[in-house]
C-alpha cells in the first residue's frame, strides 16, 4: 500500500510542478478591471458621476441597428420575462413603422436567460460579442441584470434594466440605467405608507431568500420603517417554489404584528394570503411590485383582498399614454399586459430609442451618453428622466387589491431617501 501511495503522490507532484511552471511562463495579462477604476471620460462634454466603461464600444454596420434584449423566457421569472419581451417588441415595431432612424430600421435581438445568472451572462455575451448590439435592454431580475452589466461594462455597451429594482445595481458603472424605480424609493415609500397611512407600528416581514430582489427590498423597508419609529415584529423566510407557508405564518402570528410585509413575487404571495386567512392571521398585507399580476386575485382568494402594493403604473390609469399602450398591446398580443413588465419593457426600449433618435449614434458609447441625458420622456409608467445615478425618476402608484381588480389609492411622487 505504501509504495502505491508514493506512486500517486509522485504523479500528482509531477503534474503540479510543470503546471505551475506553465502558469508562470505564460504571458500574464495586465488587469483592466473597469469596476475599480474611477477615471471619468473627459474627451466629451458629457460628464458622468459614475465610472464609465473604458472601451470603444460596438459600432452599427449595415442598414439595420441592432438592439439586444435579455429576458427570462424560461424558468421562474418567465411571466415577467415574456411580458417585457412583448413590450419591447411593440416599441420597436412602432419605431420602425414611424420610419426608423432616417430610414434605418431597428432590429430587436432577444435572448433567453432561463432565469439564471449565468444564463444571463452568456445571453448578454452573445448579444454584445456576436450580434454587436448598440444597447442591451433587460432583465426583470436584479441578480441577472448585475451579471449582464459586468459584460456590458467590458464591451462599452449601455444596459437599460427593465424591472431590476435592487439599489446597488446602477452603482456598477455609468453604463447601467433603468426604467423602473429602485428599492431605495420603493422600500422607503412603502415603509412610509405603512407607517403613515396604514398606521402600522409593529410589522412582520416575510422574505424570499432565493430572490435578491426580495432580500434587498425587505432590507430597505426594514431600515426606513425602523427609522420612522416603527418596530419589526419578526422577519421570516421562504424560498421561491415553496408551497406551504403555514409554519412561518404561525410564527408570525405568535408575535402579534399589526401588518405583514411580503417582498416576494405573486407566485408565493397568493398562497401566503390564502394560508394567512386559513390560520387566522388577520392583519393587512403590503408588498412591492413583485405582487403585480392579473392573477394575484385568483391565487390569493379572499385572503389577498385589502392588501396594498406598490407598482409602476396601472392598466386602468386614465393617462393617454397608458390607454394608448394598453390598446396597442391588446391588439397585438390578444390580451392586456399581465404584469407591469410589459409597460416597463416598452418604456426601457423607448428610452433607448429616444436616445438613438436624439443622438443618431452609431456607436454604443455615444448612445450611452445620449441615454444618460434622456429627459422628460413620456413613458407609460410616467414621465421619465434619467437621473445622474442612472435611475429613472418618476412617480409610482400604491394599489389596493379589491374583489374586481386593483384600485389606485395613492400616487407617490419621486423622492430620494436620505438617512
Amino acid at each position, binding site marked *: 500500500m505504501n509504495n*502505491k501511495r508514493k*506512486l*500517486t503522490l509522485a*504523479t*500528482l507532484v*509531477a*503534474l503540479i510542478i*510543470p*503546471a*505551475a*511552471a*506553465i*502558469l*508562470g*511562463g*505564460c*504571458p*500574464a*495579462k495586465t*488587469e483592466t*478591471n473597469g*469596476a*475599480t477604476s474611477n477615471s471619468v471620460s473627459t474627451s466629451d462634454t458629457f460628464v458622468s458621476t459614475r465610472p464609465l466603461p473604458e472601451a470603444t464600444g460596438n459600432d452599427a454596420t449595415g442598414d439595420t441597428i441592432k438592439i439586444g434584449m435579455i429576458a427570462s*423566457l*424560461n424558468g421562474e421569472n418567465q411571466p415577467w420575462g415574456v411580458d417585457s419581451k412583448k413590450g419591447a417588441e411593440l416599441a420597436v415595431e412602432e419605431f420602425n413603422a414611424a420610419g426608423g432612424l432616417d430610414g434605418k430600421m431597428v432590429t430587436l435581438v*432577444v*435572448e*433567453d436567460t*432561463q432565469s*439564471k*445568472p*449565468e444564463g444571463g*451572462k*452568456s445571453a448578454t*455575451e*452573445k448579444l*454584445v*460579442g*456576436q*450580434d454587436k448590439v448598440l444597447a442591451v435592454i433587460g432583465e426583470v431580475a*436584479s*441578480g441577472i441584470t*448585475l*451579471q449582464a452589466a*459586468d*459584460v456590458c461594462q*467590458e*464591451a462599452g455597451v449601455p444596459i437599460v434594466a427593465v424591472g431590476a429594482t*435592487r439599489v446597488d445595481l446602477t452603482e456598477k458603472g455609468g453604463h447601467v440605467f433603468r426604467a423602473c424605480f429602485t428599492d431605495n424609493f420603493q422600500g422607503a415609500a412603502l415603509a412610509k405608507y405603512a407607517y403613515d397611512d396604514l398606521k402600522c407600528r409593529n410589522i412582520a416581514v416575510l422574505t424570499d*431568500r*432565493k*430572490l*435578491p430582489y426580495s*432580500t*434587498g427590498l425587505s432590507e430597505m423597508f426594514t431600515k426606513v420603517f425602523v427609522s420612522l419609529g416603527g418596530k419589526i415584529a419578526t*422577519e421570516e*423566510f421562504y*424560498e421561491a417554489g415553496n408551497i406551504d407557508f403555514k409554519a412561518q405564518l404561525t410564527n408570525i402570528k405568535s408575535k402579534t404584528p399589526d401588518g405583514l410585509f411580503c417582498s416576494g413575487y405573486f407566485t408565493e404571495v397568493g398562497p401566503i394570503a390564502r394560508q394567512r386567512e386559513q390560520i387566522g392571521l388577520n392583519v393587512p398585507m403590503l408588498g412591492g411590485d413583485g405582487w403585480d399580476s392579473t392573477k394575484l386575485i385568483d391565487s390569493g382568494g379572499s385572503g389577498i383582498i385589502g392588501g396594498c402594493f406598490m407598482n409602476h403604473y396601472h392598466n386602468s390609469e386614465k393617462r393617454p399614454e397608458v390607454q394608448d399602450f394598453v390598446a396597442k398591446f391588446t391588439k397585438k398580443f*390578444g390580451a392586456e399586459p399581465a404584469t407591469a413588465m410589459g409597460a416597463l419593457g416598452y418604456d426601457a426600449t423607448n428610452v433607448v430609442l429616444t436616445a438613438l433618435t436624439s443622438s443618431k449614434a452609431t456607436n454604443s458609447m455615444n448612445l450611452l451618453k445620449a441615454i444618460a441625458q434622456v429627459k422628460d420622456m413620456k413613458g407609460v409608467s410616467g414621465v421619465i428622466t434619467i437621473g445622474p445615478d442612472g435611475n429613472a425618476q418618476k412617480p409610482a402608484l400604491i394599489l389596493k387589491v379589491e374583489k374586481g381588480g386593483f384600485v389606485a389609492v395613492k400616487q407617490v411622487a419621486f423622492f430620494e431617501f436620505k438617512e
Partner: protein
Amino acid sequence: MAATPQTLVSSLSSTRYSAGKFWTTRVGTFVLIAAFLYALQLFLTPNLGIYDMRILVNSLLYATLAVSLNLINGITGQFSMGHAAFYLSGAIISGKISSMYYKTAGVPGWLWLPLMVVVGAVGAALIGLLVGIPSLRLRGDYLAVMTMGFGEIARVIVINQDGGKQAFGGLDLGGAYGLQGVPKLTEMYHLLLLLIVAIALSRNLLKTAHGLSFLSVREDELAADATGVHSTRIKVTAFTIGAAIAGMAGALFAHYNRSVSPDDFKMDVSFMLVAMVVIGGTGSITGAVISGVSLKVLEEGLRALPGISATALYGFLIALIVTVLLAKQVFKRIEGPARVTFDKALIVPGLIGLGCALFGAYRLWGADMSVVIKVAFVVIALALNVAMLLPSSFRTALPKFGGAMVVLALAYGVSFGTQALLHKIAPLAAVLDPIKYQAADLRWAIFSLALVIVMLNRPQGIMSHQEFSWDFIKGIFGKKKAIGVAP
C-alpha cells in the same frame, strides 16, 4: 456494466516499466502541452469574441466536471448526484478569499490563481471527504439521494450567508445576490490545462493497479473486499479526488465569471453532469469529455433555432409519428433475400444524408454564429461521416441511417398534408394559428428530447466503456481490413 477481460488485460499489459523511456515520454508530453497552450494563448485567444470564449470556457469547464464525476460515478461506480456542491464550494471558497484579499495581498495574478485553485481544491476535497465517509455505509440509490441532499444543503447554506441574522457568524457570501468582486484571472488555457490534468489523472489511475481496485469496487464490492481491496478507502479516495477537481473547476469559474451566484449551482447542474457521464458512457473518460463539450455546445447552439408556427410544428410532429409507426411495420415485414437488397438500397439515402450533413456544415460556416459552435457542428458532421463510412459499421449503420433519412424525408412531405388538415379543423386552427414558437421556447424541449433519444438508442452511452486511444483507432482500422478481405 461488466468490464470485458480485454480492457483489464490491456490496461495491465502496458505497465511494463522502463525508467529512461518513462521520463522521456513524460517530459516530452509536458513540453508539448506547454507549447500547445502557449500557442493557443498567443494565436487563438485574442481572435475570439467574448461569446465564443464563454462557450469554449463553459464546454471546457463542464468537460472537466464530467471527467471528475466520471471518477466517482463511472470508474468507482458510486452514484453521486450532488456534484454541483463540490463545484459550488470550490467556487465560493476561493472566490470569497480572492474578493477579500487579492487587492491587498499584492501577489501577482499568475501566482494568485494557482493558489486559489489549490484553495478551492482543498476546500472541495474536505467536503468530498465529508460526503465520502458516510457514503461507505450506503449503496446505490440511497447514496444517490444522500448526495443529492448534500448538493441542496450546500446551496441553501450559501444562499443564507448574506451577513444577516441567519448567517453563521455573520458570514457574507452575497446570499442570493451572489458573491461579487472576484478578480478576473482565469484565461482559457488554465481551463484546458485543468482538463488535461483531470484526464491524465483519471487515465493514469486506470492504467495502474490502483485503477483496477477502483474498477473492482464498481463491478462487485463484495468480491473486491474479498480479494483484499480496501473498498471503503477506495470510495473515499474517489470522492475526494473527484471533489478536488470539481473544486478546482469551481475556482477557475469564479475567477472567470467574476461572481458566484448560488442559483447557478442548482440541482439541475448535478443532473446535467450525471447525464454527461452516462451519455458519454459510464467509466469512459473520452466519453465524458465528448458529451461534456457537445452538450454545452448544443445548449448554446440551439439559440440559433428559427421560430416556427405552432401549426407547422404540430403538423410535422404528427407526420413524424405516423411515418415512424408505418415505417417500423414496413421494415419489420421485409425479410429474407429482399432484406439484403432493401438494405443495399437504403445505403443510397444514407449517403445522401451524410452529404446533406456535410453540406449543412458548409452552409453553416457562412452563417452569423459563434465560431466555436460552427466548428463544433462541422466536427460533428465530419465525425458522422467518418463513423458511418468506416467499413466495420458500413453494413449496419449506413442502411439504418438511410432508413432514418427516408423516414424524415417522408415525414417532411406528409407534414404539409397534416398542416393543411390542422387548418381544416376550425377550433384547433383558431387556437394554433396565432401561436408562433420562438427559439427560446423550443430550445430546452429539443434538448431534453435529444437526451431521451440518445438514451433510448444507446443506453450504454456513446463510448460505453471504451477509451479513445491509438489502440482504439487501430482496432477500428484493423477490423476494417478484416471485413474488407472477407467475402
